[in-house]
C-alpha cells in the first residue's frame, strides 16, 4: 500500500490511558527513541495523584506528552497533534487540548459501555459524530494482539499488559523510529521472564505491522534531526539532571558527595537516582524526616563532604531552622527544592513557583543565601553544578529551585566533559598557624574550611553568634552588627561572579519580559514566535535570583513596560520592584499547570497592541 510521507518541523504526541495502561512507559520509550534519532524532544508526564485510581475513571487518567522538533523545542507543546487514547476517559480529559484536524488513535475496547459510563459520556464519541473535526483511527488493540499471540502459547492474561507496546509500535511506524533501543530495554527488563519478553516484542512488532498494512494509517511523519551542538546527548529529566549534577560536582570538586534527605513528591526521584549510585562511593541517608535530612547534611558538610539535601515545599518549610544554622556556621550546602503547588499539602503532584519568597526570605534573623533557579530539565544539571560552585567557593548554603514540571519532564542533555565545568576546588584551610574559624578570603569573604582530621585546627562552631576572626562566642553588639553585615556582603559579592544577563528576542523593544525557572520554555517559544512575526519584545531569564545579575539594573531602566510571568501571585515581581522601584506587570497563573506558549504570546500581543494604540 502506498503511504504518504509528511515532512514536519514539530509535532506533539500524547499517550493517554488508564493508570494501569502503562502510558508513562510507552511515552518514555517513544521519546527516548525520538531523541536518539536526533530530533529535539521535550516531554511531560501527567499522572493522577492517586497511586492507582479506580479503573476507567476520569481522575484515573495517566498521560505522557512529547513534543518533537527539528528546531529547538522548549516546551512539551500547548496543543496535541496526535492523541493515543486507550479509553473513553482519556479521550474526554484530553480532547480540549487536541488541535482541530489532529489525529486520535482510539482503543475500541476502552470505549465499551462500562468505560463510557465511567467517562460520563452519554453516547459513544467514536460513533456519534462529535469527533468529526479530528482524524479518528479506532481499532480494537486487544483483539489484534490476541490474534497475533494466538500461536505463541502466551497466556491471555499477559495480553492485557502489552497493549501499551502495541500502541508504541503504531507510533514507531508513524514516525519511522528505530525499535532496537526499546527491544534492548525489554531484554534487560524481562531478563527473567521469557514470556513477557517475547509477548512485548511480538506485540511491538505487531503494532508496527498493523500500521504498515492497515489503510487507516495513510501517512508517515518525518522530522529532520535538529541541529545540536556536537556531543553525546541523553534524554534526561530535571530530577535526574540534579542527581547527576551532584555526582559530577563532587567529582569535579574532588570530595565525596553526601545526600541527606527524606522522600517527597516530586523530589523523591533525586534520592532514588542517588541511591542507585551507591557503587560510586556516594553516601546518602534516607533520614527519619526532613530536619534530620538537612541536619545530617550539615554534619557531613562539617566533615568536608559536598553535602546536599533535596525536597519540596512542605519539606523546605521543615528545614528552615537548620538552613539558618548552615548560614551561621558558613558551611557549604546545596538545598534543592522541587516546587509543587501549595500552600500546605496543596496539589502535591502539580508544579508551581510559589516557594520563591520562602527561599529568599523564609528564615528567622538576617540569614541571606544565594537563590538559583533552573530553566529546564537539562538546565537542572548546570544549575546544580552552579549551586555547588557557589556553596563551596563562598562557604554558604545555596537554594536551587526547580519545579515538578521540569523535574519530571525530559529533554536532551549534552553530557559535558569534566574539564568543561567550572573550577570547584574547595577552600580547605592549609596552614594551622594562620587558621582561625572566621578568617576570611578578602575577595569572596568566605571563611576557610577546616574539617575534623586536620591537625592543629581544632575549633568550635555553632549557631551562636561568633566573634569575627576568632570564632569565640560573642555577645558584643558591634561584632554582631559587623557579622550580620559581612554575611550579607558575602552574598552580595556573588553578583560579581555570575554571568550578566543576555537579552533575547529584540533588545530594542519597548516591552521587556523577565522570567525565571521553568517558564523559560513557554516564554522563549512565545518570544520567538512574536519575533518571527516581526514584532518586538525583549526577554531576559533569571537563573540567579539572589543576588541578581548586575546588569539587570540597567536593563530594567531601558524599557517602557516590563512583564513578569510567574506561576505564583507575583513573588519575583515584588522582589524586583523592591529592588529597582520600577512598576512591573504581573502575569500570574496559579493552577498547578505550566503556562502555554499561546497564553504568553496572547499577553505580549495584548501589551503590544495597547502600546500601539497609545502611539
Amino acid at each position, binding site marked *: 500500500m502506498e503511504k504518504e510521507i509528511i515532512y514536519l518541523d514539530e509535532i506533539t504526541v500524547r499517550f493517554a490511558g488508564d493508570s494501569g495502561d502503562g502510558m508513562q512507559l510507552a511515552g518514555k520509550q517513544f521519546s527516548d527513541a525520538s531523541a536518539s534519532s536526533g530530533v529535539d524532544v521535550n516531554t511531560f508526564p501527567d499522572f493522577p495523584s492517586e497511586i492507582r485510581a479506580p479503573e476507567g475513571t476520569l481522575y484515573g487518567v495517566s498521560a505522557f506528552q512529547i513534543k518533537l522538533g527539528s528546531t529547538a523545542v522548549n516546551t512539551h507543546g500547548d496543543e496535541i497533534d496526535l492523541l493515543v487514547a486507550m479509553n473513553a476517559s482519556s479521550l474526554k480529559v484530553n480532547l480540549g487540548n487536541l488541535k482541530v484536524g489532529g489525529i486520535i488513535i482510539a482503543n475500541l475496547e476502552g470505549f465499551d459501555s462500562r468505560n463510557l459510563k465511567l467517562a460520563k459520556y452519554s453516547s459513544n464519541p467514536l460513533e456519534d459524530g462529535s469527533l468529526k473535526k479530528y482524524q479518528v483511527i479506532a481499532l480494537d488493540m486487544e483483539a489484534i494482539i490476541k490474534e497475533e499471540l494466538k500461536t505463541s502459547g502466551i497466556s491471555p492474561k499477559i495480553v492485557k499488559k502489552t497493549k501499551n507496546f502495541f500502541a508504541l509500535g503504531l507510533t514507531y511506524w508513524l514516525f519511522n523510529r528505530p525499535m532496537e533501543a526499546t527491544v534492548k530495554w525489554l531484554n534487560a527488563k524481562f531478563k527473567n521472564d521469557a514470556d513477557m519478553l517475547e509477548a512485548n516484542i511480538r506485540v511491538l512488532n505487531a503494532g508496527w505491522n498493523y500500521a504498515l498494512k492497515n489503510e487507516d494509517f495513510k501517512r508517515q511523519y518525518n522530522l529532520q534531526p535538529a541541529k545540536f551542538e556536537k556531543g553525546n546527548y541523553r534524554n534526561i529529566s530535571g530530577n535526574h539532571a540534579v542527581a547527576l549534577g551532584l555526582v559530577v560536582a563532587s567529582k569535579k570538586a574532588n570530595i565525596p558527595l553526601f545526600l541527606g534527605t527524606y522522600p517527597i513528591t516530586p523530589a523523591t526521584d533525586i534520592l532514588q537516582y542517588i541511591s542507585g549510585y551507591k557503587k560510586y562511593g556516594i553516601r546518602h541517608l534516607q533520614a527519619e524526616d526532613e530536619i534530620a535530612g538537612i*541536619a545530617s547534611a550539615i554534619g*557531613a558538610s*562539617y566533615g568536608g563532604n559536598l553535602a546536599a539535601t533535596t525536597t519540596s515545599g512542605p519539606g523546605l518549610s521543615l528545614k528552615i531552622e537548620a538552613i539558618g544554622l548552615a548560614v551561621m556556621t558558613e558551611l557549604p550546602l546545596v538545598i534543592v527544592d522541587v516546587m509543587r503547588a501549595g500552600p500546605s499539602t496543596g496539589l502535591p503532584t502539580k508544579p508551581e513557583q510559589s516557594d520563591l519568597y520562602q527561599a529568599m526570605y523564609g528564615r528567622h534573623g538576617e540569614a541571606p543565601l544565594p537563590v538559583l533557579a533552573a530553566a529546564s530539565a537539562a538546565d537542572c544539571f548546570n544549575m546544580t553544578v552552579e549551586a555547588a560552585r557557589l556553596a563551596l567557593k563562598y562557604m554558604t548554603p545555596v537554594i536551587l529551585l526547580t519545579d515538578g514540571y521540569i523535574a519530571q519532564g525530559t529533554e536532551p542533555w549534552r553530557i559535558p566533559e569534566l574539564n568543561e565545568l567550572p573550577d570547584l576546588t574547595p577552600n580547605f584551610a592549609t596552614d594551622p598557624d594562620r587558621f582561625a574559624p572566621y578568617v576570611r578570603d578578602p575577595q569572596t569573604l568566605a571563611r576557610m574550611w577546616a574539617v575534623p582530621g*586536620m591537625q592543629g585546627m581544632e575549633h568550635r562552631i555553632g*549557631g551562636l553568634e561568633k566573634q569575627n576572626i576568632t570564632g569565640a562566642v560573642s555577645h558584643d553588639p558591634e561584632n554582631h552588627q559587623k557579622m550580620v553585615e559581612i554575611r550579607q556582603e558575602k552574598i552580595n559579592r556573588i553578583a560579581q561572579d555570575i554571568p550578566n544577563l543576555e537579552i533575547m528576542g529584540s533588545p530594542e523593544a519597548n516591552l521587556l519580559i523577565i522570567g525565571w525557572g521553568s517558564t523559560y520554555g513557554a516564554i522563549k517559544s512565545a518570544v520567538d514566535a512574536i519575533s518571527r512575526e516581526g514584532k518586538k519584545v525583549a526577554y531576559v531569564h533569571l537563573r540567579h535570583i539572589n543576588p541578581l545579575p548586575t546588569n539587570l539594573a540597567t536593563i530594567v531602566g531601558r524599557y517602557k513596560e516590563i512583564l513578569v510571568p510567574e506561576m505564583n501571585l507575583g513573588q519575583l515581581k515584588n522582589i524586583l520592584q523592591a529592588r529597582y522601584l520600577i512598576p512591573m506587570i504581573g502575569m500570574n497563573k496559579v493552577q498547578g499547570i505550566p503556562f502555554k506558549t499561546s497564553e504568553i504570546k496572547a499577553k505580549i500581543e495584548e501589551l503590544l497592541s495597547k502600546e500601539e494604540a497609545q502611539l
Partner: protein
Amino acid sequence: MKTLLDEIISKPHIGSIVYEPKDFKPDVDVRWCAGCGGYSILSPVQRIMPELGIPKEKIAFISGIGCSGRFPYYMDVYGFHGIHGRAIAIASGLKIGRPDLSVWVATGDGDNMSIGGNHFIHGCRRNTNINVIMFNNEVYSLTKGQYSPTSHKGQITKSSPLGALDEPFNPAALALGAGATFVARGIDKDRNHLQSLFERAAAHNGFSFIEVYTNCNIFNDGAFDSFTKKDVREDQTVMLEHGKPLVFGKERDKGIIIDGLNPRWYRWWTVNTPWTTCWCMMKKTARSHSYWAI
C-alpha cells in the same frame, strides 16, 4: 580513587598521640554554674580521651542547645554546637560522611527526649557508631526551669506551678524499645563509674547511650538525693554488671534473682522504693552486649 578530602584526613599525625587529660582543656572559662553536675561529666570525659589512642583532630563533639550544649566549647577537639534537639542528626551525618572520626554527642533531657526524641529513637535503631551522653537533670535549665519529659509526676517547676501532670519517660526503656545496642546509666556523683561507662561506650561499635543523672543546683537541686545521698545510696541502687549477681544494700544482703525463664533475649527487674522507681535491665543482642547500671 583518593579524593582531596581523603588526602587531608589521611595526613599522618605529627608528634605523639600520648595525651594527658589537660590536653583536652581549651583555654576558655567553663561557664556552668558553680556546683553544676556538668563538671562531673566533663572531667571523666577528658580523662578517657587519652585512652582512645587517636589523634585529637580525629575527635568531634556535637551538641544541641541547653546547658549541656556548651560541652563542645570545653573540649579542645573539633566541636559543633548545633541547634536544639538535632545533635544526633548532625552527628549521624558527620559519622556517615566521615567514618574515620570518633563522634560524641552531648545532650540534655529536653534536647534529647523532648524536641530531639525522634532523632534519638532513630539513632538507637540505626545503630550508627556514635556515643551519646545525656545530661539528665530532669528539668529545662537553660530556659530557667520548666519541666521536661523526665521530670517526675507532680514536679513543681516554673511551667508546672501545680505539679507536672504526665508520666516521665524512662530514657533507658525508651532506648531499648527503640532497639539500642548499648544503654548505660550513671550519676554525676560517681565520676569513676562514669569514666568506666564512657570507656565502654567508646569501645562499643554502634550507637551508645549513656544517661547521666546530673544535678542542676539552680533549678532542680537535689533531684537525685533520695537514692544518691551517702546514707541511702547503698540501699537504693543496684550496680548492674554483665555476668555479676545483682547484690546490693549496705550489708550486701539484698539481691535480685531470676530463675525459671530462659533469658534468651531480655531480663527486666524493678526495684521500687517510696521515693523513686529505678529500672534495671540487661540486654544481650546478637549484635553486642549492652550494659546498664544505675
